[in-house]
């Protein structure tokens, strides 16, 4: 699915005394999203900037969001000019499909709770409590940024699965152990909970860092305990951001693919693998589209609910001139001990699979799979194989260029759009917003197919060009799949820019564009950078879009990885996958460092 899975997000302890906190501080500041304002649409149409944005969005949506998907859905549901709705019957008569659908929703709902519990805990121990070695803790929790997908699931399976070495060790002490203890619903929830706290790490940490220290001091002086402060001040202030990350978590759960495949066993399969299988077969594509649309409906219901709750709530307002919070000391000794033990135990859970992935990349694949590793199985063959293969570097460069361009384009392009949508909240902006969320409803693979089929002939909307078979189409697809995620977070950031700031700029004579460039963008730049980094890392090893769209001369990384791990005679595929995982970790870690690391260092220097 096009929902953000796996590696997403960063941020936290090292930067909370620093500027990254601003947008989130502002998010907390934000009043509840106002209801539509009367006359907003008319005002939008009167502003030159509004018109430009409107025309741009309408063109892009028509050309790349509506037309390709409409083409595909028409070809799917109206083959030969006759409407065919047999997909409904076929689906409804299948017990397995309905069960999988139910499992996906169940998983999403469960994750919405568990990820929030773990995520909030992580955010508190890295940003709120005065913990020992907070930076090390933060780095451990941030591993989810660079580690996800099939390798994460496989890694957990090699450690805790039927023949994993933890299971083997346990079985020696306790021979009656059920070797399948780590499978099914509980295992999937556990793995996905620990793998998807990245959004909390990034956005919730920033929001926490923005809470006004003075408010907390005041509460303390009035005799409030830590628990009371958390419950009455901190959590309510974090609520808007909690809603946002809950939506993202829910989507991740709905689109869960690899964890259920590897760890779900027979009892807990989700619907995403079924959608992928059906999307690849022309006769079953209608069922795939129908399943995807059903998941999309669940998302829309959730979004609507969240919007309602968000609007109805009243929020704790913090001062405009916020004093950044400082880590809070523990009030009781046993409280400190409990939190430390829990935090470090959790840290071990996070770090262990990553260390294993690095180790596995040096181990003979056969030994990994059989579950018993000895010193004799150590090898550098996989590394030598990957690094010396004829075109080891090319795909990396191609993917870095595509992901870099697409993530920059989508963030910069949506900058004005997000501003227009928050500024002029009328029926037109609501409509645009829903259209821009289309990529969340359809799986990437269907979006890609729609693009190929639509642009295989000259199209007026793109200046009479044929785009199929050119290098641009994959870039466009990458931009498309990243629109909803980027839009939601940019909108949150924009909502947070105080109106007074803009008014002041206008009174001083700044034009609209100058205001945006000199006042608004600097305020939301950290969010822009964070979102761009997240988009970049998640596009880096994409396979679903690339498979139909990549240009023969520019092979992206996802395709190269898949190729190097397949083949009838290739028994070392797992080891090679781990090598690529480690390489990806390095690249993604570098991006994380570029966006956050140096700033953290600066904060310490000034500290």
């Amino acid at each position, binding site marked *: 699915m096009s929902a953000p899975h796996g590696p997403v997000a960063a941020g936290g302890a090292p930067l909370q005394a620093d500027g990254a906190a*601003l947008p989130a501080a502002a998010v907390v500041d934000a009043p509840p999203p106002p209801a539509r304002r009367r006359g907003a649409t008319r005002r939008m149409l009167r502003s030159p900037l509004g018109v430009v944005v409107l025309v741009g969005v309408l063109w892009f949506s028509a050309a790349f969001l509506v037309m390709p998907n409409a083409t595909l859905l028409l070809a799917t549901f109206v083959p030969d000019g006759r409407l065919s709705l047999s997909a409904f019957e076929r689906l409804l008569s299948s017990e*397995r499909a309905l069960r999988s659908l139910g499992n996906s929703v169940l998983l999403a709902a469960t994750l919405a709770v568990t990820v929030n519990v773990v995520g909030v805990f992580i955010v508190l121990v890295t940003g709120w409590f005065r913990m020992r070695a907070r930076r090390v803790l933060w780095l451990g929790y941030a591993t989810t940024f660079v580690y996800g997908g099939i390798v994460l699931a496989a890694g957990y399976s090699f450690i805790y699965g039927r023949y994993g070495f933890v299971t083997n060790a346990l079985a020696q002490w306790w021979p009656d152990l059920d070797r399948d203890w780590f499978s099914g619903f509980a295992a999937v929830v556990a793995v996905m909970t620990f793998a998807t706290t990245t959004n909390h790490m990034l956005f919730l940490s920033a929001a926490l860092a923005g809470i006004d220290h003075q408010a907390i001091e005041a509460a303390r002086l009035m005799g409030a305990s830590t628990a009371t402060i958390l419950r009455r001040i901190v959590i309510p202030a974090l609520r808007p951001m909690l809603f946002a990350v809950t939506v993202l978590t829910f989507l991740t759960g709905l689109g869960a693919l690899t964890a259920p495949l590897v760890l779900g066993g027979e009892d807990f399969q989700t619907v995403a693998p079924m959608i992928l299988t059906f999307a690849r077969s022309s006769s079953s594509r209608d069922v795939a589209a129908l399943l995807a649309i059903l998941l999309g409906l669940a998302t829309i219901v959730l979004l609507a609910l969240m919007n309602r709750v968000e609007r109805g709530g009243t929020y704790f307002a913090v001062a405009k001139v916020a004093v950044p919070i400082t880590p809070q000391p523990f009030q009781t000794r046993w409280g400190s001990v409990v939190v430390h033990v829990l935090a470090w135990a959790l840290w071990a859970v996070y770090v262990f699979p990553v260390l294993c992935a690095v180790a596995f990349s040096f181990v003979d694949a056969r030994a990994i799979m059989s579950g018993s590793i000895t010193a004799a199985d150590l090898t550098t063959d996989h590394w030598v194989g990957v690094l010396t293969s004829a075109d080891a570097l090319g795909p990396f460069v191609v993917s870095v260029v595509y992901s*870099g361009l697409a993530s920059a384009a989508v963030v910069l392009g949506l900058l004005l759009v997000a501003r227009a949508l928050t500024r002029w909240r009328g029926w037109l902006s609501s409509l645009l917003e829903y259209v821009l969320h289309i990529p969340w409803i359809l799986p990437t693979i269907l979006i890609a197919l729609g693009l190929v089929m639509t642009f295989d002939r000259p199209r007026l909307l793109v200046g009479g060009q044929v785009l199929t078979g050119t290098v641009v189409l994959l870039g466009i697809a990458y931009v498309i799949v990243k629109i909803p995620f980027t839009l939601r977070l940019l909108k949150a950031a924009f909502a947070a820019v105080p109106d007074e700031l803009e008014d002041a700029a206008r009174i001083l004579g700044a034009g609209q564009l100058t205001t945006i460039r000199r006042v608004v963008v600097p305020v939301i730049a950290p969010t*822009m*950078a964070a979102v761009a980094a997240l988009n970049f890392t998640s596009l880096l090893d994409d396979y679903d879009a690339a498979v*139909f769209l990549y240009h023969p001369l*520019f092979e992206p990384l996802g395709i190269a990885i898949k190729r190097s791990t397949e083949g*009838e*005679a290739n028994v070392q595929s797992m080891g090679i996958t781990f090598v690529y995982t480690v390489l990806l970790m390095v690249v993604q870690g570098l991006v994380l460092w570029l*966006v956050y690391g140096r700033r953290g260092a600066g904060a310490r220097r000034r500290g």
Partner: protein
Amino acid sequence: MRAWGRRGLRTSVALLLAGTVLTGCAGGGEPAADGDAAGGDQKLVVYTNSNSDGRGEWVTAQAAEAGFDIEIVGLGGADLTNRIIAEVNNPVGDVVFGLNTMFFEQLKAEQAITAYQPSWSDEVPQEAGDPVDGAYWPLVDQAIVTVYDSATTTDAPADVSELWTNPEYAGRYEVNTALGQATPQLVVAGILAPYTDAEGQVSDEGWAAVEAYYANGSPAVEGTDLYARFERGEVAYGVTPTGGIIARDEEYGTETAIVPSAQGVPFVTEQIGVIAGTDQQQRAQEFIDWFGSAEVQGEFAQEFNSMPVNEVAAEQANPEVVELVGSVQRADIDYAVVREHIGEWVERIELEYLP
């Protein structure tokens, strides 16, 4: 506030700069590609699903020696077929090889390939390719067989169907539930073949057999090799293409034996064809003449332990491979019928029979 803002601005400037640099790179790449396309001596784009294990690199190098400047586009079978069909109005590739008969039938039905009779056409048996229209021609043969390790498993059934009819074997054989892939689809085609009439209607017994097959099997584990599961004693039997057996016996120290099948086993015959609408038809045909020739196929077979369909080339193949492939009988499967119905069969299995 100002310090924050400035740092934020610096980050965005850095991002913008990075973007510009990247654009520069991409910009640098594009004209090169266009230049290639415009020049007289274009790169021949070869689509294949048979480029893993170093085969893609080998073919590219050999082709360069023979004077062909080719670019391999390697994707999985189902994805590649979908891609060629989606591109049918504006093809990117010139030649496609490696896909099995079922996928080539699909390409033919969508008019994505054009017929061409290669120079080596009388060195291959007609029925291995497309005897009706000659739209595609056979290169390499593989049997899809059910195997076990004869060193550790001694109670092999007399016929493969006993695995799912005899309760003794329940849960002891691996079934691949990734039905989007070619091999599991062919297994289904093989099981259903005896129960399918000429129109593609499957009898109830056929569906009962498929249901029993999946209900009694142990689903394949994503990311875990069949032979690794043999080694752990998790399953004793499983399906694999003959192409990987020799490498695995070496790797795992197993002694692979094949479970006999009275119905015969499905064969994957990798084919080659010209993509319809290519602007390099002549060159594409020359490439096929070269690649399918006894000499090149013979060398390919020696290099990758494959079983060439080309009878002259087969003499150069590894005798072990020839024996392995020769030891099983080809099941009688009508691929035109299978092509037409495999989608709905897979859908029915996915929706109703998978565990």
